[in-house]
C-alpha cells in the first residue's frame, strides 16, 4: 500500500516537472544563500580562533605599548630581571611580490606560557631546530604563498592561522627589519609574589586583561550578524517560492488525495507519505543548496577576507573548506524551510474531509478568504515595528524591528494591490480593460507569494544601497575632514622628529603632530590624542554636537572633544565632564563622527597631552602646504627623509576608499542574488499558473480576443503588478535604510549615519526589477499566445 501510495504521489511531480523544479530550485537557492553566508561566517570564526590560539588571546593578559606599535627589547629584559614572567612577541606585515601580505609572528618558545608554539616543531628537529634554523610555520595556503619569498625553511603547520607565519622572534626581527624591538608581551597566569608594579619598570606599557585581548571576534560580530541577517532575508525570499510551489502542488492534488482515500488509503498514512516525500525532496534540494552555497561562499570569501583585514586587521582564509557541520546545518535549514513552507498545506490535507470537493478549489478563492486575516496580522506587525522603533533598545530590538517591518509590509501587499486593482477596474472604459483589471485581481492571490518575494528583494536593494551610498558619501566627507593635511610623514626617532619640526617651521603652512596613546576613558578603551589646535582643525572638523567655541576651549586646555562611539557607549554628551588623566577632568566641548573606528577617541590640547604623558613624543606629523610636491622634494633632498616615510594624502584616501568599496562588494553581490531569486519566483509562478489559466482565458478567446492579444495582456498583467510592487517597495526600502542607519548601525557600531536619497539609483533598480518581471513573464506569455485552439476548445467540451 505504501509503495502504491508513494508512486501515485510521486507521479504528480513526474507529470509536473516544472513544479518539481520550482520546489527543488527554490529550496536549493534558499539553502545556498543561507549556507553560503554561514560558511563564510564559520570560516572567518575558525580563522579568528586559530589566530587567538596562536598567542593565547583570551587566556593570557598582554602588555602592549601605550603609543606606537613597538617598544625596545630592553623593556622585556627589565621586566624579566624584576621577576615578571612574560614572553616577548613581535608581529608585523611582510609584503610579497604579488603585493599581498602575510602577518609575521615572532615568538620565544622558551618563555611562552601554556605551551604556545607551533604544533609541528618536530619537523625541524624540535625546539633547538626552531631556534636555530630560521623555520617559518604556516598553514598550507600561506606556506605556498611565502615559499621562496621569505628567508627560512617553510614548514606546513595545519594549526597555524590563515595568513600568519610563525617563527622565532629573532628571525621575525630580521624579516620585519625591527631589530631589538617587540610588539607585545604575553603575561603568564602565575606570577611571583611581590612583583614591582608595571608602571615603575615599563611606564610606556599598558596591561590588557585576557578578556579584552581577543577583540577580533567581538569587533567582527556585528559584521557577521549583518551577513547572517542578509542570508536569512535571502532564505526567506527562497522559502516564499517553496511555499508557493508546495501550496499549488497540494492544491492540485486535492482530487488525488480524495481518490486515494476513497480507494482505501488511511489518512494518517497518506499524510506521512507526503511528509516523507517532502523530506526526500528537502534532502535533495539541501544537498544541491550546500554545493551551491559552497560555490557562493568561494566566490564571496576573498572579498570578505579583504574586508575583514581592511576593517579589523583580522586574517581570514581566502578559501572555503567543506566542514561536516556545514553539511549538517545546510540539510537542517533545508528541512526546516520545507517544514515551514509545507506546514499549512499538510495541516489542510490532514483536516480535509474525505468527501470535500475534489476540484482544486479556485486557489484564488481559498487565498482570498484568508486575505483579511493576513491584513490584520500585517497591521499588528507594522504596529509592533513602530513600537520597536519608538521604545526598543539594543541590537536584538533593531533586528526585531526589521523583521516586523518587512513581514508586515509583505503581508499587507496583497490588500494594497487588490485595492489599487479595484480602483483601476472601476475607472476602465473599455470592456477589455475592465475584464483585464478584474482578471488581474482574480489572479492576484496566485501571484502573491512571488510578488511578496519581489517586494522584499527590491526593498532590501533600496534599503541596503541607500545605507551603503549614504555611508560612502559620509565617509568621503569624513576623509576630507580628517585627511586635510596634504602630506603625512614619519620620523624614525624622537630626535629626528624634533629636527623635522625645526626644518618644517618655515616651509610648511602648518605642522600637526599625530600624538596619541591608548588609555582608558570613562572605563572604555580609548585613543587619547594631543592636538595642536590651529586652522586645520577649526576649518575641517565638523561636530555632531558642540558647545560654544569648542576649539578655543580645547586649545586653552579647558575642554576635550570625544568621538560619537565613546559618547554613546559611556552615555556622555556635550557639557559632561570626563577624566582624561589621573588628576584631570575636563568638560566635553564637542562630539565628532569617527566612522570605521571601533574604539573611543578623545582629543585634548597638545600641552595637556604633554603634561599627562611627558615621555611621549610625536614621531608622525600631518603637514599643510600650498605646494606639497615642493615640500616633498625638500624633505627628501634637503632633509634626507627616506621617501618611504612620506605618504600623500591622496594615497591614503584612495586606500581607504578601496577598503570601503571592497567591504560592500559582498553586500552588493547578495543584493543581486536576492533580486535574481525574486525574478525566479515570478517566472516559476507564471509558468506554473500558465496551464491553469487556459480555462479562464478560453471564454475571452471565444468572445473574440486573439491568442496573441491574450499573450500581450498576460505580459502587461505581470508588468503592471511588478510596477505596482516596485512603487510600494520604494518607501519600504527607505524605511529599511532608516532602520539600518539610525537603529542597527548605532547599536552595532556605535555611530549614526545621515541618510541621503539617490533617486537615479532607485530608477535604475526599478528598471532592473521591471526587466526581470518582463523576462519572467515573456516565456509564459509566448506559450499562452501559442496555445493550440484545440486546447482552448476542450474547456467548452468538458473534457478537461
Amino acid at each position: 500500500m505504501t509503495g502504491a501510495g508513494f508512486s501515485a504521489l510521486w507521479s504528480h511531480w513526474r507529470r509536473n516537472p516544472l513544479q518539481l523544479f520550482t520546489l527543488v530550485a527554490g529550496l536549493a537557492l534558499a539553502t545556498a544563500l543561507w549556507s553560503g553566508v554561514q560558511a563564510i561566517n564559520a570560516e572567518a570564526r575558525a580563522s579568528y580562533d586559530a589566530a587567538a590560539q596562536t598567542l593565547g588571546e583570551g587566556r593570557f593578559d598582554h602588555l602592549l605599548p601605550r603609543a606606537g606599535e613597538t617598544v625596545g627589547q630592553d623593556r622585556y629584559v627589565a621586566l624579566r630581571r624584576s621577576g615578571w614572567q612574560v614572553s616577548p612577541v613581535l608581529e608585523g606585515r611582510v609584503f610579497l611580490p604579488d603585493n599581498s601580505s602575510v602577518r609575521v609572528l615572532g615568538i620565544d618558545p622558551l618563555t611562552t606560557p601554556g605551551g604556545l608554539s607551533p604544533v609541528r616543531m618536530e619537523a625541524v628537529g624540535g625546539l633547538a631546530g626552531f631556534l636555530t634554523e630560521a623555520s617559518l610555520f604556516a598553514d598550507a595556503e600561506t606556506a605556498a604563498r611565502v615559499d621562496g619569498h621569505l628567508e627560512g625553511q617553510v614548514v606546513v603547520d595545519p594549526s597555524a592561522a590563515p595568513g600568519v607565519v610563525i617563527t622565532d622572534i629573532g628571525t621575525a626581527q630580521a624579516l620585519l627589519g625591527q631589530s631589538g624591538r617587540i610588539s607585545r608581551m604575553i603575561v603568564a597566569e602565575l606570577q611571583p609574589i611581590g612583583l614591582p608594579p608595571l608602571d615603575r619598570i615599563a611606564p610606556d606599557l599598558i596591561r590588557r586583561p585576557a578578556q579584552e585581548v581577543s577583540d577580533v571576534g567581538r569587533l567582527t560580530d556585528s559584521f557577521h550578524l549583518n551577513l547572517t541577517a542578509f542570508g536569512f532575508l535571502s532564505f526567506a525570499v527562497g522559502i516564499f517560492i517553496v511555499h508557493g510551489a508546495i501550496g499549488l502542488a497540494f492544491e492540485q492534488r486535492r482530487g488525488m488525495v480524495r481518490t486515494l482515500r476513497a480507494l482505501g488509503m488511511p489518512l494518517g498514512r497518506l499524510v506521512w507519505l507526503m511528509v516523507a516525500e517532502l523530506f526526500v525532496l528537502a534532502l535533495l534540494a539541501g544537498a544541491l543548496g550546500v554545493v551551491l552555497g559552497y560555490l557562493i561562499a568561494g566566490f564571496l570569501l576573498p572579498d570578505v577576507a579583504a574586508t575583514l583585514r581592511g576593517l579589523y586587521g583580522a586574517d581570514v582564509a581566502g578559501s572555503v573548506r567543506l566542514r561536516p557541520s556545514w553539511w549538517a546545518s545546510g540539510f537542517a535549514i533545508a528541512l526546516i524551510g520545507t517544514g515551514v513552507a509545507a506546514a499549512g498545506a499538510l495541516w489542510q490535507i490532514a483536516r480535509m474531509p474525505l468527501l470535500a470537493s475534489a476540484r482544486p478549489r479556485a486557489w484564488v478563492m481559498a487565498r482570498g478568504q484568508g486575505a483579511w486575516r493576513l491584513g490584520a496580522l500585517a497591521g499588528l506587525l507594522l504596529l509592533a515595528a513602530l513600537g520597536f522603533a519608538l521604545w526598543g533598545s539594543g541590537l536584538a530590538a533593531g533586528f526585531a524591528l526589521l523583521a516586523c517591518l518587512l513581514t508586515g509590509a509583505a503581508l499587507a501587499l496583497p490588500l494594497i494591490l487588490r485595492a489599487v486593482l479595484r480602483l483601476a477596474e472601476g475607472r476602465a472604459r473599455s470592456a477589455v480593460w475592465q475584464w483585464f483589471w478584474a482578471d488581474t485581481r482574480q489572479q492576484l492571490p496566485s501571484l502573491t507569494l512571488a510578488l511578496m518575494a519581489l517586494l522584499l528583494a527590491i526593498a532590501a536593494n533600496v534599503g541596503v544601497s541607500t545605507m551603503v551610498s549614504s555611508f560612502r558619501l559620509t565617509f568621503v566627507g569624513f576623509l576630507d575632514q580628517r585627511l586635510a593635511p596634504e602630506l603625512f610623514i614619519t620620523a624614525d626617532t624622537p630626535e629626528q622628529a624634533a629636527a623635522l619640526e625645526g626644518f618644517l617651521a618655515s616651509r610648511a603652512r602648518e605642522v600637526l603632530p599625530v600624538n596619541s596613546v591608548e588609555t582608558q576613558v570613562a572605563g572604555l578603551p580609548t585613543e587619547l590624542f594631543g592636538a595642536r589646535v590651529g586652522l586645520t582643525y577649526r576649518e575641517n572638523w565638523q561636530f555632531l554636537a558642540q558647545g560654544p567655541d569648542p576649539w578655543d576651549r580645547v586649545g586653552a586646555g579647558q575642554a576635550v572633544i570625544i568621538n560619537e562611539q565613546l559618547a554613546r557607549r559611556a552615555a556622555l554628551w556635550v557639557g559632561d565632564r570626563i577624566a582624561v588623566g589621573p588628576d584631570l577632568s575636563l568638560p566635553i566641548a564637542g562630539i565628532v563622527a569617527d566612522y570605521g573606528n571601533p574604539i573611543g577617541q578623545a582629543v585634548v590640547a597638545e600641552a595637556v597631552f604633554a603634561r599627562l604623558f611627558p615621555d611621549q613624543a610625536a614621531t608622525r606629523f600631518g603637514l599643510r602646504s600650498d605646494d606639497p610636491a615642493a615640500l616633498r622634494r625638500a624633505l627628501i633632498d634637503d632633509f634626507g627623509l627616506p621617501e618611504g616615510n612620506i605618504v600623500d594624502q591622496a594615497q591614503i584616501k584612495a586606500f581607504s576608499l578601496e577598503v570601503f568599496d571592497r567591504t560592500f562588494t559582498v553586500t552588493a553581490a547578495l543584493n543581486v542574488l536576492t533580486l535574481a531569486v525574486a525574478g525566479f519566483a515570478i517566472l516559476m509562478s507564471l509558468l506554473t499558473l500558465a496551464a491553469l489559466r487556459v480555462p479562464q482565458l478560453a471564454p475571452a478567446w471565444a468572445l473574440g480576443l486573439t491568442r496573441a492579444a491574450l499573450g500581450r495582456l498576460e505580459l502587461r498583467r505581470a508588468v503592471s503588478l511588478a510596477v505596482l510592487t516596485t512603487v510600494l517597495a520604494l518607501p519600504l526600502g527607505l524605511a529599511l535604510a532608516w532602520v539600518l542607519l539610525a537603529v542597527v548601525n548605532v547599536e552595532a557600531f556605535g555611530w549614526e549615519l545621515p541618510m541621503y536619497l539617490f533617486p537615479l539609483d532607485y530608477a535604475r533598480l526599478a528598471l532592473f526589477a521591471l526587466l526581470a518581471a518582463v523576462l519572467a513573464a515573456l516565456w509564459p506569455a509566448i506559450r499562452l499566445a501559442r496555445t493550440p485552439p484545440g486546447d482552448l476548445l476542450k474547456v467548452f467540451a468538458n473534457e478537461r
Partner: protein
Amino acid sequence: MLLEVENLTKSYPGADGPVAVLRGVDLRLAAGETVALTGESGSGKSTLLHLVGGLDTADGGTIRFDGRDITALDDTGRAALRRRDVGVIFQQFNLIPSLDVAANIAFQARLSGGADMDRLQTLAKALGLDDHLRKYPESLSGGQQQRVAIARTLMARPKLVLADEPTGNLDEATAADVLAQMLELVSETGAALMVVTHSAAVAGQMGRQLHLSRGRLA
C-alpha cells in the same frame, strides 16, 4: 447476506439547524445481486451509497457488511474496507491524472496487496482500453475514462461494487455500452452491485429497484 442496513440515519448541518437526509433506511443485499437506487435530487441516494461504502459515517443505525458492523469501524477500519471489499465508481471518474491508464487500473489492487497483470490485460481488452494503457486520463474521452474507473474497481475483486451515476456524464450510446460492459464484468466476478441513477434505462437493467424518497425507502 452480504449487506444488511437497519434504521440508518444521517443529517447534515444547514442554515436553520441539522437537515435530515436519511431518516431510518432498511436495506438488504445478497452476494451477486444487482440493485438500482433511484430517487429525486436530494433524496439521500449518494449519502446512502457513501455510508455503505465507508466513505462517511452514519448518525444512527447499523450497516452489517459480510456479518461485520461497519458503523463501528474507525477511519483505518473503513479505509481497509474500501481497499479490500468495496469498490466505488464515481460519476466524475476520479482517476489519478498523473498516472497512466495501466497504473490507474492497477492502483486499487496494488493498495490492497498486489495487481495481477494478466487480469489487467483481460479487463483492458474487455473494456476496449488495451490500446490506451500508456495514455494519461486527460487524453481519453469521458466514456473511456469511466471504463478505466470500472476496470480499476474490478481489478481489486471487491465483494460489493457501488456506482454513483456511472453513466451520468456520458452520451446515451456510450452510456449503454459502458453499462453493459460493467454488468457483464461484475457478474463474472460474482460481486453485488448497487447503482445510484436517475436513468430509468439504467435502473431497468438491474435485478431490483429501490426508490428513495425524503430519506426513506419507498
